[in-house]
Protein backbone atom coordinates (compact mmCIF):
# COMPACT_ATOMS: atom_id res chain seq x y z
CA UNK A 1 0.00 0.00 0.00
CA UNK A 2 2.77 2.41 0.98
CA UNK A 3 4.62 1.64 -2.30
CA UNK A 4 1.52 2.45 -4.35
CA UNK A 5 0.98 5.68 -2.46
CA UNK A 6 4.61 6.71 -3.05
CA UNK A 7 4.31 5.88 -6.74
CA UNK A 8 1.11 7.96 -7.04
CA UNK A 9 2.84 10.90 -5.39
CA UNK A 10 5.81 10.64 -7.78
CA UNK A 11 3.46 10.52 -10.76
CA UNK A 12 1.64 13.62 -9.50
CA UNK A 13 4.94 15.48 -9.11
CA UNK A 14 6.07 14.50 -12.59
CA UNK A 15 2.70 15.56 -14.04
CA UNK A 16 2.98 18.89 -12.22
CA UNK A 17 6.49 19.54 -13.58
CA UNK A 18 5.42 18.36 -17.02
CA UNK A 19 2.53 20.83 -17.07
CA UNK A 20 4.86 23.70 -16.21
CA UNK A 21 7.40 22.69 -18.87
CA UNK A 22 4.77 22.29 -21.59
CA UNK A 23 3.06 25.54 -20.63
CA UNK A 24 6.29 27.58 -20.79
CA UNK A 25 6.74 27.73 -24.62
CA UNK A 26 3.06 28.59 -25.07
CA UNK A 27 3.40 31.53 -22.70
CA UNK A 28 6.67 32.65 -24.30
CA UNK A 29 5.23 32.52 -27.83
CA UNK A 30 1.97 34.24 -26.94
CA UNK A 31 3.84 36.97 -25.06
CA UNK A 32 6.22 37.43 -28.00
CA UNK A 33 3.37 37.67 -30.54
CA UNK A 34 1.52 40.11 -28.32
CA UNK A 35 4.55 42.38 -28.10
CA UNK A 36 5.09 42.34 -31.87
CA UNK A 37 1.47 43.27 -32.49
CA UNK A 38 1.81 46.00 -29.85
CA UNK A 39 4.81 47.37 -31.74
CA UNK A 40 2.83 47.40 -35.00
CA UNK A 41 -0.12 49.11 -33.29
CA UNK A 42 2.22 51.69 -31.77
CA UNK A 43 3.50 52.68 -35.20
CA UNK A 44 0.08 52.54 -36.87
CA UNK A 45 -1.61 54.61 -34.19
CA UNK A 46 1.07 57.28 -34.08
CA UNK A 47 1.35 57.49 -37.87
CA UNK A 48 -2.41 58.02 -38.04
CA UNK A 49 -2.18 60.61 -35.28
CA UNK A 50 0.48 62.57 -37.17
CA UNK A 51 -1.31 62.34 -40.53
CA UNK A 52 -4.63 63.40 -39.00
CA UNK A 53 -2.88 66.35 -37.41
CA UNK A 54 -1.30 67.33 -40.73
CA UNK A 55 -4.63 67.18 -42.55
CA UNK A 56 -6.55 69.03 -39.81
CA UNK A 57 -7.59 72.68 -40.02
CA UNK A 58 -5.80 73.65 -36.82
CA UNK A 59 -3.58 76.72 -36.72
CA UNK A 60 0.07 76.06 -37.43
CA UNK A 61 1.09 77.04 -33.90
CA UNK A 62 -1.39 74.54 -32.46
CA UNK A 63 -0.21 71.82 -34.85
CA UNK A 64 3.40 72.44 -33.80
CA UNK A 65 2.48 72.29 -30.13
CA UNK A 66 0.59 69.02 -30.53
CA UNK A 67 3.34 67.58 -32.72
CA UNK A 68 5.87 68.45 -30.01
CA UNK A 69 3.90 66.56 -27.41
CA UNK A 70 3.63 63.53 -29.71
CA UNK A 71 7.34 63.80 -30.43
CA UNK A 72 8.28 63.94 -26.73
CA UNK A 73 6.10 60.91 -26.09
CA UNK A 74 7.33 58.61 -28.84
CA UNK A 75 10.88 59.65 -29.74
CA UNK A 76 13.68 58.73 -27.33
CA UNK A 77 15.54 62.00 -27.85
CA UNK A 78 17.47 61.56 -24.61
CA UNK A 79 19.01 58.29 -25.76
CA UNK A 80 19.54 59.59 -29.31
CA UNK A 81 21.48 62.57 -28.01
CA UNK A 82 24.08 60.27 -26.49
CA UNK A 83 24.11 57.88 -29.43
CA UNK A 84 24.68 60.72 -31.89
CA UNK A 85 27.75 61.85 -29.99
CA UNK A 86 29.39 58.43 -30.27
CA UNK A 87 32.65 57.99 -28.37
CA UNK A 88 32.58 61.64 -27.25
CA UNK A 89 29.55 61.05 -25.04
CA UNK A 90 31.68 59.55 -22.30
CA UNK A 91 34.24 62.34 -22.56
CA UNK A 92 31.96 65.24 -21.57
CA UNK A 93 30.92 66.27 -18.07
CA UNK A 94 27.44 65.55 -16.60
CA UNK A 95 26.62 69.28 -16.83
CA UNK A 96 27.58 69.29 -20.51
CA UNK A 97 25.42 66.20 -21.05
CA UNK A 98 22.37 67.94 -19.57
CA UNK A 99 22.91 71.09 -21.65
CA UNK A 100 23.58 69.08 -24.79
CA UNK A 101 20.46 66.93 -24.37
CA UNK A 102 18.30 70.04 -24.10
CA UNK A 103 19.70 71.60 -27.25
CA UNK A 104 19.67 68.29 -29.10
CA UNK A 105 16.01 67.68 -28.28
CA UNK A 106 15.05 71.07 -29.74
CA UNK A 107 17.25 70.48 -32.79
CA UNK A 108 15.83 67.06 -33.60
CA UNK A 109 12.28 68.29 -33.09
CA UNK A 110 12.99 71.10 -35.60
CA UNK A 111 14.27 68.48 -37.99
CA UNK A 112 11.14 66.34 -37.61
CA UNK A 113 8.95 69.45 -37.90
CA UNK A 114 10.51 70.16 -41.29
CA UNK A 115 9.89 66.57 -42.36
CA UNK A 116 6.32 66.82 -41.08
CA UNK A 117 5.69 69.93 -43.17
CA UNK A 118 7.24 68.33 -46.26
CA UNK A 119 5.49 64.99 -45.80
CA UNK A 120 3.26 64.32 -48.81
CA UNK A 121 2.51 60.61 -48.60
CA UNK A 122 -1.10 59.80 -49.38
CA UNK A 123 -1.12 56.37 -47.82
CA UNK A 124 0.93 54.05 -45.67
CA UNK A 125 0.98 50.36 -44.88
CA UNK A 126 2.66 48.81 -41.84
CA UNK A 127 4.01 45.54 -43.16
CA UNK A 128 5.46 43.58 -40.27
CA UNK A 129 7.43 43.65 -37.05
CA UNK A 130 10.21 41.51 -35.68
CA UNK A 131 12.03 41.32 -32.38
CA UNK A 132 15.74 41.92 -32.06
CA UNK A 133 18.03 41.53 -29.05
CA UNK A 134 17.96 43.62 -25.86
CA UNK A 135 14.22 44.39 -26.10
CA UNK A 136 14.50 46.13 -29.46
CA UNK A 137 11.88 45.80 -32.17
CA UNK A 138 11.87 46.59 -35.86
CA UNK A 139 8.68 47.68 -37.60
CA UNK A 140 8.61 47.98 -41.40
CA UNK A 141 6.29 50.33 -43.21
CA UNK A 142 5.85 51.55 -46.79
CA UNK A 143 4.40 54.95 -47.71
CA UNK A 144 3.07 56.00 -51.11
CA UNK A 145 3.59 59.49 -52.53
CA UNK A 146 1.06 61.27 -54.78
CA UNK A 147 3.18 60.29 -57.80
CA UNK A 148 2.87 56.63 -56.82
CA UNK A 149 6.45 56.31 -55.61
CA UNK A 150 6.79 53.96 -52.65
CA UNK A 151 9.21 54.63 -49.83
CA UNK A 152 10.39 51.99 -47.36
CA UNK A 153 10.59 53.16 -43.77
CA UNK A 154 11.85 51.11 -40.84
CA UNK A 155 11.29 52.08 -37.22
CA UNK A 156 13.64 50.80 -34.55
CA UNK A 157 11.87 50.71 -31.21
CA UNK A 158 12.94 50.01 -27.68
CA UNK A 159 10.48 48.89 -25.02
CA UNK A 160 11.14 50.57 -21.70
CA UNK A 161 8.81 50.46 -18.70
CA UNK A 162 6.09 48.85 -20.84
CA UNK A 163 6.26 51.73 -23.32
CA UNK A 164 7.73 51.87 -26.81
CA UNK A 165 10.14 54.60 -27.83
CA UNK A 166 11.47 55.20 -31.32
CA UNK A 167 15.26 55.23 -31.36
CA UNK A 168 15.87 55.36 -35.08
CA UNK A 169 14.02 55.83 -38.35
CA UNK A 170 15.59 54.28 -41.44
CA UNK A 171 14.34 55.64 -44.75
CA UNK A 172 15.26 53.68 -47.88
CA UNK A 173 18.16 52.08 -46.04
CA UNK A 174 19.53 55.36 -44.63
CA UNK A 175 19.62 55.51 -40.84
CA UNK A 176 18.95 58.95 -39.43
CA UNK A 177 20.74 58.13 -36.18
CA UNK A 178 23.77 56.71 -37.98
CA UNK A 179 24.04 59.78 -40.22
CA UNK A 180 23.92 62.10 -37.20
CA UNK A 181 26.45 60.00 -35.31
CA UNK A 182 28.88 60.20 -38.20
CA UNK A 183 28.37 63.94 -38.61
CA UNK A 184 28.44 64.90 -34.91
CA UNK A 185 31.53 62.81 -34.20
CA UNK A 186 33.44 64.47 -37.00
CA UNK A 187 32.42 67.95 -35.86
CA UNK A 188 33.45 67.32 -32.26
CA UNK A 189 36.73 65.69 -33.33
CA UNK A 190 37.64 68.61 -35.59
CA UNK A 191 36.19 71.63 -33.78
CA UNK A 192 35.31 70.61 -30.23
CA UNK A 193 32.13 69.98 -28.29
CA UNK A 194 31.16 73.63 -27.76
CA UNK A 195 31.25 74.23 -31.51
CA UNK A 196 28.71 71.43 -31.93
CA UNK A 197 26.43 73.04 -29.34
CA UNK A 198 26.61 76.38 -31.16
CA UNK A 199 25.74 74.81 -34.50
CA UNK A 200 22.82 72.88 -32.98
CA UNK A 201 21.43 76.07 -31.47
CA UNK A 202 21.69 77.83 -34.83
CA UNK A 203 19.68 75.06 -36.48
CA UNK A 204 16.76 75.23 -34.05
Amino acid at each position, binding site marked *: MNNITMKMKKIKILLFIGLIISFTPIMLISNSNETLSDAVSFIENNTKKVLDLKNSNKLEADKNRILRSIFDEIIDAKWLAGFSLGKHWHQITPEQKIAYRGVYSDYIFSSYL*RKFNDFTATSYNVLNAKASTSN*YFVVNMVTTNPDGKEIDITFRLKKIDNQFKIRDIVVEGISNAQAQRSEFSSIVSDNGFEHLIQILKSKV
Partner: protein
Amino acid sequence: MLKQFIVSCTVFTLLFFSYSFAEETFEDDDYSNYPFHEEIAEPISDPLEPLNRLIYGFNRAFESIITIPVTTVYKAIIPKPVRTGVGNFMQNFKEPVHFINGILTLQPKRSVDALSRFVVNSSVGVLGFIDVAGASKSVPETYDLTFTNTFKKYGAKRGAYLVLPILGSSDIRNVFGQTADYFSNPLTYAFHKDFMYVKGGVSYIHYKNEYMGVENHIRKDALDEYLSYRSYYEQYHNEDEKN
Protein backbone atom coordinates in the same frame (compact mmCIF):
# COMPACT_ATOMS: atom_id res chain seq x y z
CA MET B 1 8.69 17.28 2.43
CA LEU B 2 6.56 16.77 -0.65
CA LYS B 3 4.59 19.95 -0.05
CA GLN B 4 7.81 21.92 0.35
CA PHE B 5 9.10 20.49 -2.92
CA ILE B 6 5.95 21.52 -4.82
CA VAL B 7 5.96 25.00 -3.31
CA SER B 8 9.64 25.37 -4.26
CA CYS B 9 8.88 24.33 -7.85
CA THR B 10 6.03 26.80 -8.08
CA VAL B 11 8.04 29.66 -6.67
CA PHE B 12 10.95 28.83 -8.94
CA THR B 13 8.65 28.76 -11.97
CA LEU B 14 7.06 32.07 -11.10
CA LEU B 15 10.47 33.65 -10.60
CA PHE B 16 11.62 32.21 -13.93
CA PHE B 17 8.67 33.72 -15.80
CA SER B 18 8.91 37.08 -14.10
CA TYR B 19 12.62 37.27 -14.95
CA SER B 20 12.01 36.20 -18.56
CA PHE B 21 9.35 38.79 -19.19
CA ALA B 22 10.89 41.59 -17.16
CA GLU B 23 11.56 44.78 -19.09
CA GLU B 24 14.20 47.24 -18.19
CA THR B 25 12.89 49.79 -15.78
CA PHE B 26 16.06 51.82 -15.53
CA GLU B 27 17.29 54.41 -17.98
CA ASP B 28 19.24 52.60 -20.65
CA ASP B 29 22.32 54.73 -21.08
CA ASP B 30 24.43 51.88 -22.32
CA TYR B 31 24.89 52.15 -26.05
CA SER B 32 26.98 49.03 -26.33
CA ASN B 33 23.92 46.74 -26.46
CA TYR B 34 22.34 48.60 -29.37
CA PRO B 35 21.89 45.71 -31.82
CA PHE B 36 22.17 47.81 -35.01
CA HIS B 37 25.63 49.20 -34.25
CA GLU B 38 28.01 47.48 -36.66
CA GLU B 39 26.09 48.11 -39.84
CA ILE B 40 28.68 49.71 -42.08
CA ALA B 41 30.36 46.82 -43.86
CA GLU B 42 33.20 48.94 -45.17
CA PRO B 43 33.46 52.38 -43.52
CA ILE B 44 34.34 55.07 -45.98
CA SER B 45 37.83 56.56 -45.87
CA ASP B 46 38.29 60.18 -46.81
CA PRO B 47 42.01 60.98 -47.02
CA LEU B 48 41.33 63.73 -49.57
CA GLU B 49 38.82 65.58 -47.40
CA PRO B 50 40.30 69.09 -47.90
CA LEU B 51 40.25 68.70 -51.69
CA ASN B 52 36.84 67.02 -51.62
CA ARG B 53 35.45 69.91 -49.60
CA LEU B 54 36.76 72.40 -52.16
CA ILE B 55 35.14 70.50 -54.99
CA TYR B 56 31.94 70.13 -52.98
CA GLY B 57 31.87 73.91 -52.57
CA PHE B 58 32.32 74.34 -56.31
CA ASN B 59 29.54 71.83 -56.99
CA ARG B 60 27.14 73.69 -54.71
CA ALA B 61 27.88 76.93 -56.52
CA PHE B 62 27.45 75.21 -59.89
CA GLU B 63 24.12 73.82 -58.74
CA SER B 64 22.86 77.19 -57.56
CA ILE B 65 23.80 78.95 -60.78
CA ILE B 66 23.17 76.28 -63.42
CA THR B 67 21.67 72.99 -62.22
CA ILE B 68 18.74 74.20 -60.12
CA PRO B 69 17.45 76.73 -62.70
CA VAL B 70 17.76 74.20 -65.54
CA THR B 71 16.15 71.45 -63.46
CA THR B 72 13.31 73.77 -62.49
CA VAL B 73 12.64 74.58 -66.16
CA TYR B 74 12.96 70.88 -67.07
CA LYS B 75 10.34 69.94 -64.50
CA ALA B 76 8.05 72.82 -65.43
CA ILE B 77 8.14 72.35 -69.19
CA ILE B 78 8.51 68.62 -69.67
CA PRO B 79 5.38 66.68 -68.67
CA LYS B 80 5.81 63.85 -66.19
CA PRO B 81 5.08 61.02 -68.70
CA VAL B 82 7.82 62.41 -70.96
CA ARG B 83 10.23 62.67 -68.03
CA THR B 84 9.43 59.07 -67.13
CA GLY B 85 10.14 58.16 -70.75
CA VAL B 86 13.50 59.90 -70.57
CA GLY B 87 14.39 57.91 -67.45
CA ASN B 88 13.34 54.67 -69.17
CA PHE B 89 15.47 55.51 -72.22
CA MET B 90 18.51 56.17 -70.02
CA GLN B 91 17.99 52.90 -68.18
CA ASN B 92 17.49 50.95 -71.42
CA PHE B 93 20.72 52.42 -72.79
CA LYS B 94 22.62 50.62 -69.99
CA GLU B 95 21.17 47.16 -70.59
CA PRO B 96 24.03 46.06 -72.93
CA VAL B 97 26.42 46.76 -70.04
CA HIS B 98 24.18 44.76 -67.71
CA PHE B 99 24.30 41.90 -70.21
CA ILE B 100 28.11 41.97 -70.23
CA ASN B 101 28.37 42.11 -66.45
CA GLY B 102 25.88 39.30 -66.06
CA ILE B 103 28.31 37.11 -68.00
CA LEU B 104 31.37 38.39 -66.14
CA THR B 105 29.75 37.68 -62.77
CA LEU B 106 28.65 34.20 -63.92
CA GLN B 107 24.95 35.01 -63.77
CA PRO B 108 23.78 33.81 -67.19
CA LYS B 109 20.09 34.01 -66.36
CA ARG B 110 20.35 37.65 -65.36
CA SER B 111 22.45 38.30 -68.42
CA VAL B 112 19.61 36.93 -70.53
CA ASP B 113 17.17 39.08 -68.55
CA ALA B 114 19.16 42.19 -69.46
CA LEU B 115 19.22 41.19 -73.11
CA SER B 116 15.47 40.45 -73.06
CA ARG B 117 14.69 43.79 -71.47
CA PHE B 118 16.82 45.57 -74.07
CA VAL B 119 15.22 43.80 -77.02
CA VAL B 120 11.64 44.20 -75.77
CA ASN B 121 11.97 47.81 -74.65
CA SER B 122 13.95 48.90 -77.73
CA SER B 123 11.37 47.44 -80.10
CA VAL B 124 7.93 47.44 -78.53
CA GLY B 125 9.00 50.11 -76.05
CA VAL B 126 10.01 52.60 -78.78
CA LEU B 127 13.78 52.78 -78.27
CA GLY B 128 13.30 52.23 -74.53
CA PHE B 129 11.02 55.19 -73.80
CA ILE B 130 8.37 52.79 -72.61
CA ASP B 131 9.44 50.21 -70.05
CA VAL B 132 7.31 47.41 -71.47
CA ALA B 133 9.34 44.70 -69.73
CA GLY B 134 9.03 46.47 -66.37
CA ALA B 135 5.33 47.24 -66.70
CA SER B 136 4.50 43.65 -67.58
CA LYS B 137 6.82 42.43 -64.79
CA SER B 138 7.85 39.74 -67.22
CA VAL B 139 11.59 40.28 -66.79
CA PRO B 140 13.36 41.13 -63.50
CA GLU B 141 15.34 44.37 -63.24
CA THR B 142 19.07 44.26 -63.82
CA TYR B 143 20.22 47.76 -62.85
CA ASP B 144 22.77 46.41 -60.36
CA LEU B 145 24.77 44.58 -63.05
CA THR B 146 27.44 47.25 -63.41
CA PHE B 147 31.22 47.11 -63.58
CA THR B 148 31.37 48.67 -60.11
CA ASN B 149 29.56 45.65 -58.69
CA THR B 150 31.62 43.28 -60.83
CA PHE B 151 34.83 44.76 -59.44
CA LYS B 152 33.40 44.45 -55.96
CA LYS B 153 32.45 40.82 -56.53
CA TYR B 154 36.03 40.02 -57.47
CA GLY B 155 37.45 41.66 -54.38
CA ALA B 156 38.12 45.27 -55.30
CA LYS B 157 37.73 47.50 -52.26
CA ARG B 158 35.81 50.73 -52.39
CA GLY B 159 38.87 52.97 -51.99
CA ALA B 160 38.90 56.60 -50.99
CA TYR B 161 35.79 58.75 -51.02
CA LEU B 162 35.85 61.24 -53.85
CA VAL B 163 33.80 64.28 -54.73
CA LEU B 164 33.84 64.65 -58.51
CA PRO B 165 33.35 68.04 -60.13
CA ILE B 166 29.66 68.47 -61.03
CA LEU B 167 28.94 64.76 -60.64
CA GLY B 168 29.26 64.69 -56.87
CA SER B 169 29.87 61.81 -54.45
CA SER B 170 31.77 58.76 -55.62
CA ASP B 171 34.71 56.55 -54.69
CA ILE B 172 37.70 55.11 -56.53
CA ARG B 173 36.05 51.80 -57.39
CA ASN B 174 32.95 53.55 -58.63
CA VAL B 175 34.98 55.87 -60.87
CA PHE B 176 36.68 52.91 -62.52
CA GLY B 177 33.38 51.06 -62.69
CA GLN B 178 31.45 53.82 -64.38
CA THR B 179 34.31 54.47 -66.79
CA ALA B 180 34.29 50.80 -67.74
CA ASP B 181 30.48 50.92 -68.11
CA TYR B 182 30.81 53.80 -70.58
CA PHE B 183 33.57 52.37 -72.76
CA SER B 184 32.23 48.80 -72.76
CA ASN B 185 28.77 49.82 -73.94
CA PRO B 186 28.44 49.12 -77.70
CA LEU B 187 25.87 51.90 -77.93
CA THR B 188 28.58 54.43 -77.00
CA TYR B 189 30.12 53.82 -80.45
CA ALA B 190 26.83 53.53 -82.31
CA PHE B 191 25.96 57.20 -81.91
CA HIS B 192 27.71 60.43 -82.80
CA LYS B 193 29.72 61.93 -79.95
CA ASP B 194 27.53 65.06 -79.97
CA PHE B 195 24.54 62.86 -79.22
CA MET B 196 26.48 61.31 -76.34
CA TYR B 197 27.28 64.74 -74.91
CA VAL B 198 23.61 65.75 -75.07
CA LYS B 199 22.59 62.43 -73.58
CA GLY B 200 25.04 62.94 -70.72
CA GLY B 201 23.67 66.39 -70.00
CA VAL B 202 20.05 65.26 -70.11
CA SER B 203 20.88 62.29 -67.91
CA TYR B 204 22.47 64.58 -65.32
CA ILE B 205 19.48 66.96 -65.27
CA HIS B 206 17.05 64.05 -65.11
CA TYR B 207 18.91 62.49 -62.18
CA LYS B 208 19.11 65.83 -60.35
CA ASN B 209 15.38 66.36 -60.85
CA GLU B 210 14.61 62.93 -59.37
CA TYR B 211 16.73 63.44 -56.26
CA MET B 212 16.44 67.21 -55.68
CA GLY B 213 13.86 66.70 -52.93
CA VAL B 214 16.07 64.22 -51.07
CA GLU B 215 19.11 66.48 -51.41
CA ASN B 216 17.16 69.44 -50.04
CA HIS B 217 16.19 67.37 -47.01
CA ILE B 218 19.82 66.44 -46.38
CA ARG B 219 20.87 70.08 -46.58
CA LYS B 220 18.11 71.40 -44.33
CA ASP B 221 19.01 69.03 -41.50
CA ALA B 222 22.75 69.01 -41.95
CA LEU B 223 25.07 70.66 -39.47
CA ASP B 224 27.85 70.14 -41.99
CA GLU B 225 26.53 69.46 -45.50
CA TYR B 226 29.72 67.82 -46.68
CA LEU B 227 29.73 65.35 -43.77
CA SER B 228 26.02 64.64 -44.21
CA TYR B 229 26.46 63.86 -47.88
CA ARG B 230 29.40 61.61 -47.13
CA SER B 231 27.44 59.73 -44.48
CA TYR B 232 24.45 59.27 -46.73
CA TYR B 233 26.68 58.07 -49.56
CA GLU B 234 28.34 55.59 -47.20
CA GLN B 235 25.01 54.24 -45.99
CA TYR B 236 23.39 54.23 -49.43
CA HIS B 237 26.12 52.03 -50.81
CA ASN B 238 26.43 49.96 -47.66
CA GLU B 239 23.73 47.55 -48.77
CA ASP B 240 25.89 46.80 -51.80
CA GLU B 241 28.88 46.22 -49.51
CA LYS B 242 26.96 43.86 -47.26
CA ASN B 243 25.69 41.69 -50.12
